[in-house]
């Protein structure tokens, strides 16, 4: 073979090898391009509006009065001594032996650069990777595509909704964040949405508690009769708005939810509290506990969850610290669970970020402990947040802390492209849709 022909054929063979998908030992089919860092991402919107002072700043009560103690109330996520005295909340022992901060990279100073510092807007920015001006809690889908839509559309092959979940603590506008209004994306690429407090709580137990899990044969019976009826009617109903699972996935999810409703009614749900004590649950912890049930059952590749109880800080600073401590426990509990799961362990990266901060100055409300409250009206302090990225030590830089109060090292819009990079589809997304950058400093 002439040298030129050899080189040409060798080159074509090499190109073919690179272009042809291959099967990893896990059984997953990958295109060789756009390789992944890990196969699972959990994005925690540690939301409700958290000031950096009480979180990564570990200043506890010292901003209320210089004579009051400082200290770390997030003993699962952060390294740092607990307050020397504590009159505010009953601290729980950490669930993690090693704080998450040491299991990854902490961007201590992250800028929420533009737009109103409202909860819905903050969530929208965090989940679309674009700053927006939506100031009101309008119950409408966002303009820009969400991380779920990017993930489902640009993964190769396309992913099902079973692999993407948005699990929120509250209702209001939050159910609208599982897909956008974008013509190129939209509901067909949206995530499964769930609000566990409703489904596992009174409403779900009252209205779904009698539903039964049908065996596949029974589902087939129902569908067979339905098909006969449909054959005798000329019209097909328009699809309901929103995401649609495949019939098989829908049955799986229904059976899962019915089992969890029953578990919750009987007090058998595994929950994120010390000793599995159901009486210690907060709304945030219910959400985190249910998110774990979803992850344990379906091992989704992209799960986004939030907390919101901390918004009590508008009128109760003591309760804000209480919920901060509890939510930290929940996040640590979730990370601990992931580490013991046969599929998720060593193949999951968790990203935590508040949707926005809170004001530097107190409002006029004082709680029962004489502590002043904080709103979030868009001052510079309410634009300060942090971002923590934790994961396997061969994927994520361990024990690294970056940034300082006057030196933001990332922006709120950077998490979406970072997740896109971790899950291997960033290069397929039109660059104009993701103005943020990949937080490569955190990744090996």
């Amino acid at each position: 073979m002439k040298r030129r022909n050899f080189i040409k054929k060798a080159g074509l063979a090499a190109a073919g090898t690179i272009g042809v998908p291959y099967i990893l030992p896990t059984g997953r089919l990958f295109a060789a391009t756009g390789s992944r860092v890990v196969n699972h991402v959990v994005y925690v919107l540690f939301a409700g509006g958290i000031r950096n002072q009480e979180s990564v700043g570990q200043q506890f009560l010292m901003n209320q009065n210089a004579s009051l103690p400082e200290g770390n109330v997030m003993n699962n996520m952060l390294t740092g001594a607990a307050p020397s005295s504590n009159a505010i909340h009953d601290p729980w022992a950490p669930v993690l032996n090693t704080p998450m901060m040491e299991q990854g990279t902490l961007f201590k100073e992250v800028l929420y650069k533009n737009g109103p510092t409202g909860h819905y807007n903050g969530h929208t920015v965090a989940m679309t990777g674009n700053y927006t001006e939506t100031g009101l809690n309008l119950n409408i889908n966002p303009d820009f595509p969400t991380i779920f839509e990017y993930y489902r559309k640009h993964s190769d092959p396309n992913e099902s909704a079973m692999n993407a979940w948005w699990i929120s603590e509250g209702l209001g506008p939050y159910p609208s964040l599982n897909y956008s209004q974008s013509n190129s994306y939209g509901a067909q690429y949206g995530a499964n949405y769930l609000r566990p407090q409703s489904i596992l709580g009174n409403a779900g137990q009252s209205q779904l508690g009698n539903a039964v899990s049908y065996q596949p044969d029974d589902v087939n019976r129902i569908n067979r009769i339905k098909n006969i009826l449909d054959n005798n009617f000329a019209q097909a109903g328009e699809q309901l708005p929103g995401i649609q699972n495949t019939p098989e996935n829908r049955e799986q999810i229904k059976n899962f939810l019915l089992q969890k409703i029953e578990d919750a009614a009987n007090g058998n749900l595994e929950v994120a509290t010390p000793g599995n004590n159901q009486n210690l649950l907060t709304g945030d912890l219910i959400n985190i506990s249910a998110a774990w049930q979803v992850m344990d059952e379906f091992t989704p590749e992209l799960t986004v969850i939030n907390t919101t109880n901390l918004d009590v800080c508008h009128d109760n600073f003591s309760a804000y610290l209480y919920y901060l401590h509890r939510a930290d426990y929940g996040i640590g509990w979730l990370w601990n669970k992931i580490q013991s799961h046969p599929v998720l362990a060593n193949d999951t990266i968790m990203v935590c970020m508040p949707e926005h901060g809170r004001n530097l100055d107190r409002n006029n409300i004082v709680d029962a402990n004489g502590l002043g409250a904080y709103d979030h009206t868009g001052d510079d302090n309410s634009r300060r947040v942090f971002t923590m990225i934790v994961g396997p030590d061969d994927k994520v830089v361990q024990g690294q802390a970056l940034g300082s109060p006057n030196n933001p090292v990332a922006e709120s819009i950077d998490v979406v492209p970072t997740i896109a990079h971790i899950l291997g589809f960033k290069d397929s997304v039109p660059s104009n849709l993701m103005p943020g950058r990949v937080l490569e400093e955190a990744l090996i």
Partner: protein
Amino acid sequence: MNRIFQLSIIFLFSMSILFGCKQEKEYQYVFEVNEENLYLSNVEKTKQKTPEQYISILYSNLFSTTVPQQDLSQLAEVRVSIGDKQMADEMILNDFVNSGNASTPTNQEMRASIDQFIEDTYIRFFLRKPSPYEVLELKQEIEGDAELTPEMIYQAFALSNEYKFY
């Protein structure tokens, strides 16, 4: 007032009369519906029910009463708390049918009078009588499958395309 609501009111009024005096054959209430108000054919159904209409009419069809306000509020909460609305509706329907409070004939009653059950069910859900062919089709299914229950058939009717229209 459109036709479906007129029919629902007549239907509910008939329910209250019938349930008060015929406990032993409570699933045969449909004959109290004035036949003049039944659809003559399913081609008359051209408008799709809204999700709210679907749930409230379904509740009325199965429980023979209007939805209590608290239930309506919780049903709305459940529906908004699940992203896949088709799944939410199927779960709500499943709960209705299996609640033990829906007026549903037993399997034994259904099989003792299959033709009657089929006609009752068509009138109950579709507000029309079945054609002879429709009776034949469904009868064959019931007779050919001992494990096909009235609850499953009710769910199939409520999930059908025709039930989504009025």
